[in-house]
């Protein structure tokens, strides 16, 4: 008896173990995205700021992709003489805006700033960003749960990230 139940028990354990590993593996994808989504609304979105590319950063921040819209107005200079200080502003005519994010595609990490726009705040922001080199600047507006973007290329003559 004991000799039979012994191996059977271990085999069951192994199978159970394999099953739970498989479950965990499957579960990882949705669970990985969930904290990133929460971060967009609440805590400092550390992961999104660590992403290198703009698409990855947008995904890490919002968990979805943006569609270009002419209702997003991105104001940036054609040529920035000093990449360390590039004045960039965003305004929009969209309703129900909840956040605005700015990305510099060619920077070492693309996401530069993300602003939460509570009810009653005008959906617009002006700030100054660093740009490593000539790059597309992308403004993302989150309105009514959807993402809208505007892109503009800024030529940089002296980079702002190498000193």
């Amino acid at each position: 008896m004991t000799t039979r139940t012994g191996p059977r028990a271990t085999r069951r354990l192994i199978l159970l173990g394999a099953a739970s590993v498989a479950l965990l593996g499957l579960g990882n994808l949705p669970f990985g995205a969930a904290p990133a989504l929460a971060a967009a609304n609440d805590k400092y979105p550390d992961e999104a700021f660590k992403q290198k590319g703009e698409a990855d950063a947008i995904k890490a921040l919002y968990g979805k992709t943006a569609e270009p819209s002419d209702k997003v107005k991105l104001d940036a200079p054609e040529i920035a003489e000093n990449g360390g200080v590039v004045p960039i502003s965003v305004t929009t005519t969209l309703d129900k805006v909840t956040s605005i994010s700015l990305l510099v595609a060619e920077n070492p990490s693309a996401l530069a700033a993300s602003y939460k726009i509570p009810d009653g705040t005008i959906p617009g922001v002006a700030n100054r960003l660093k740009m490593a080199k000539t790059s597309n600047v992308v403004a993302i507006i989150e309105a009514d749960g959807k993402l809208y973007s505007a892109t503009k290329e800024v030529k940089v003559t002296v980079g702002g990230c190498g000193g």
Partner: protein
Amino acid sequence: MASTIRVRATSNGDITEVQTLIQHPMDTGLVKDAKGELIPAHYIQELKFECNGKDVFVANWGTAVSKDPYVKFSFKGAKKGDDLKISWTDNKGGSDTTTAKIS
């Protein structure tokens, strides 16, 4: 110590325009100093504006925001004489807070 935050909040009817300038190095962690050693990253991560007990604007910043950051925005629902509280925290746990009167 003088505050690192300089703020101008002006009311124009229903809309209050806020301009803020903060003194902060905003080091990226990619730049080397004169000795060739990397200057560690040191940057503001969160900047918050509160008025009448409500957040009116929250910024999450990465290293790509310029040194001595400037930010401008506008909001509704405040009037002259209301207090606007501004606070920031950086990645090293540093922080500063100030309160400005809307004029």
